C-alpha cells in the first residue's frame, strides 16, 4: 500500500491497471479524458499489458468493448455525458448478453444548455439499461468502487456490467489523499476472469441473434432477476473487500447518525460529504438529523431504504439531475419505494449544470426537511440556489 495525492480520474485508471484490464477502447471527452490518458501512459511505460484501442467515437468504444468482452477478456473503459449518450444504443446490448464490462462515467451535464460541468442527467438517463450503477463520494471511494466493480461484475451469479459514476471536476480533477493497493493485494482479491459465453471456434456459440417475442419476455425477466440477485453479491464483495483492504462503504446504502434520527437527507455523489457536515452541525444544535448515502442506483435499494427510513418523520431526497416536469429521478424512485413507510418525502434539486453546492444550500435542504417533521407545508420539489422565486 502506498499513499499518493491524486485525482479521482487517476485513481480510477490505477484501479483498472491493477485489475489487469486486457482491452481498453477509448475516446476522449472532458472530464473523463484523464482516465484514458493515464491508462495509455501505463501501457506505453510497460506497466500494464493491455490493448489500448483509440476508437472513432464512443459508440465504437462500447461496440469494441462488447466485441472484446464476448471474445472473453476483461474490458474497461470510461466516458462522460454526450459520450455516454452516444453509447446509449450499445449500452442496452451489454447486460442482456451478460458481459461484465466495467466503465467509469465521469458525470457531466448533457444536451442543450450544455457545459462540461457536473450533473447526473447523463447516467440517470441510462438507469433503465440494465447496467449496475453506483455513485461515489471521494477519490478513495472512486478507486475502491472500481476495484470492487470488477469482482462484482465478473461473479458468475451476477455477470453484469457496472458503471461507476463520479462527479466531473469535483472528483475527476481534484487531487486528494488516496491509498493505492499493491498489485499483489489486488491479485488476491480479484480472481482471473473466467468468461461464460465466448466467441471461440473450438466451441461455437451464437451470441445475441434476433430474439423473437416467444423468448424475449423470459430473457428480460431473467435479466431483471439477475440484477435483483446482485444485491447479495454486492454485500459479500464489500465484506471481502473490507477484509482485504480494510475499508468498507456499507453496501447499497450507507447511513450516518440514523440511529435516533427524526429527519434525514438522502444524497449521492460528492454532496454526501457536505450533508455529513450539516448533520453534525444540526446534531450540535440538538436536532435529530441523519443521512442516508445512496451508493447503488441499480440495483435500487428498496428494502434497505424501507428499513433505514422506518422511524423517520421526514426524508429529503437530493438530486443533481432533473426529470423534466417530474422532479428529480432519485426523488421519484425513492418516493415510489417507500410506499409502506409513513414518512414525508420531499425532493431537493441542486448543483444543476455544475452550479456549486455550498454549505448554505445543504443547510437549507435540512431546514426544510426538519420543517416537514412539524407538519408544516413543504414544497414537494425545491430547487436550491435558483435565482428568482419558484412558481
Amino acid at each position, binding site marked *: 500500500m502506498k499513499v499518493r495525492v491524486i485525482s479521482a480520474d487517476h485513481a480510477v485508471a490505477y484501479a483498472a491497471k491493477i485489475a489487469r484490464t486486457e482491452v481498453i477502447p477509448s475516446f476522449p471527452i472532458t472530464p473523463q479524458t484523464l482516465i484514458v490518458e493515464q491508462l495509455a501512459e501505463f501501457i506505453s511505460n510497460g506497466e500494464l499489458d493491455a490493448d489500448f484501442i483509440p476508437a472513432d467515437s464512443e459508440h465504437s468504444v462500447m461496440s469494441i468493448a462488447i466485441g472484446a468482452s464476448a471474445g472473453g477478456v476483461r474490458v474497461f473503459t470510461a466516458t462522460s455525458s454526450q459520450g455516454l449518450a452516444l453509447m446509449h444504443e450499445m449500452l442496452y446490448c451489454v447486460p*442482456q*448478453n*451478460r*458481459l461484465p464490462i466495467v466503465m467509469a462515467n465521469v458525470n457531466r451535464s448533457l444536451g442543450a444548455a450544455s457545459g462540461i460541468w457536473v450533473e447526473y442527467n447523463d447516467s440517470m438517463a441510462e438507469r433503465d439499461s440494465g447496467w449496475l450503477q453506483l455513485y461515489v463520494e471521494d477519490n478513495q471511494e472512486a478507486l475502491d468502487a472500481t476495484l470492487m466493480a470488477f469482482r462484482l461484475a465478473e461473479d458468475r451469479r451476477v*455477470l453484469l456490467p457496472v458503471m461507476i459514476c463520479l462527479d466531473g471536476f469535483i472528483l475527476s480533477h481534484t487531487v486528494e489523499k488516496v491509498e493505492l493497493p499493491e498489485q499483489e493485494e489486488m491479485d488476491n482479491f480479484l480472481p482471473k476472469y473466467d468468461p*461464460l*459465453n465466448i466467441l471461440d471456434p473450438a*466451441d*461455437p*456459440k*451464437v*451470441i*445475441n*441473434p*434476433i*430474439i423473437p417475442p*416467444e*423468448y424475449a*419476455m*423470459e*430473457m428480460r*425477466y*431473467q435479466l431483471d*432477476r*439477475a440484477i435483483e440477485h446482485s444485491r447479495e453479491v454486492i454485500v459479500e464483495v464489500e465484506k471481502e473487500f473490507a477484509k482485504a483492504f480494510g475499508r468498507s462503504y456499507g453496501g447499497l446504502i450507507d447511513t450516518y447518525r440514523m440511529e435516533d434520527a427524526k429527519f434525514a437527507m438522502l444524497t449521492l455523489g460528492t454532496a454526501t460529504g457536505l450533508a455529513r457536515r450539516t448533520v453534525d452541525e444540526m446534531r450540535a444544535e440538538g436536532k435529530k438529523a441523519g443521512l442516508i448515502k445512496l451508493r447503488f442506483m441499480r440495483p435500487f435499494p428498496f428494502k434497505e431504504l424501507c428499513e433505514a427510513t422506518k422511524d423517520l418523520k421526514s426524508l429529503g431526497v437530493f438530486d443533481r439531475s432533473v426529470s423534466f416536469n417530474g422532479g428529480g429521478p432519485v426523488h421519484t424512485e425513492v418516493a415510489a419505494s417507500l410506499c409502506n413507510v409513513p414518512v414525508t418525502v420531499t425532493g431537493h434539486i441542486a448543483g444543476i449544470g455544475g452550479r456549486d453546492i455550498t454549505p448554505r444550500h445543504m443547510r437549507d435542504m435540512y431546514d426544510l426537511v426538519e420543517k416537514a417533521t412539524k407538519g408544516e407545508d413543504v414544497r414537494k420539489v425545491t430547487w436550491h440556489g435558483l435565482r428568482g422565486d419558484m412558481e
Partner: protein
Amino acid sequence: MFEVRFHGRGGQGAVMAAQTLAEAAVIEGRHAHAFPFFGAERRGAPVMAFARIDDEKISIKSQVYEPDLLVVLDESLIDIEPVARGLKKDGKAVVNTRKSPQEIDLGVEVECATVNANAIALEFLKAPIVNTAILGAVARITDLVSIGSMKQAIENRFGEKFGEAAARINIGAAEAAYEQASVGLCQGRRPLVIKREWLPDWRDIPIGNSLSAGIKDGVMVGPGGARQNLTGSWRMQTPHYDQEKCVRCLRCWFTCPEGCIKREDDDHVRWDLNYCKGCGICSQVCPVTAIDMIKGGSR
C-alpha cells in the same frame, strides 16, 4: 365480429388482400381492420395476415386464433402448416387450387370455395400475385361484403398505389374468380399437427442470449441449427439434372444460394431438394443445359 386469417407466401399479396377486404367492409359502412403477422419473412416464406369486421368499433388488437373465415393463398401450405388450426366448426374457407372443394383436406370439414387463382392471376396480371383473385372467391362464399364493394375496395387500394390500369386488371381478376369459384364441403381428415417448439421457462433459458449447438425438446438450437428449416417447401419449380450432359464445372454448386447442390467425389452433383427453393440459377448458369427447371414444387 367476423374474423379472417390469411395464409400465403411472401410476395403473393396476403397483406394487401386482408387490407382490401377490410376496406370493402368499411365501404359498406362497417368497422374493420387488417394487419400482417409482424415477422421478418422473405419472398416465398409462409406468411399470415389478419382481418376483422364488425358493426362496432373494433378494440381487440390480438392476432386471430379462431377465424370465421380461412383464406389460403397457396395450396402447398396446407401440407406444411396446420393452416386450419382454430377454424370455427361453422366457419368457411377459400383455397387457391385447381382442385374441387371435395378434393381438399383442410383438417376441418367446412364450406369451402376453391378457385384456380394462379391461372387467373397469370391471365390478368401476368404474375402469380393471387390476392385480388382470391378476394373474388371470398365475396362469393361469404355474405360479408358484396362483390361490388370488393371491386370498389380494389379500385381504391390498387388504384392509389399502382395506377388506374392496374386497378382495372385486378378488378377483372376478382370478377373472374367470383364467377369461377366452386363451393362445396372440404374434407376434415388431416390431423392439425402443431409445429414442435422449444419454449422454456425463464429459468431454463441459457443466460446471455447465447446457445451452443444442441437439441432441446426435439428441436435443433444454436449454431447451424437453422438447417432444420426445410425451405424446399417454398419451391414452385424443380431442377431436373441430366448427369450425362454434365461437364462437372461446378458452376451450379458455386452459385446455388441454398447450398442444396451437393458435390460428389467426382464433381458430379446432386440436389438436396429439402432446401431447393426453385430459383433456377443452376439451370441458368449451366454451360451445357444439363439442368432444366420443371414446373411444380415439393409435392
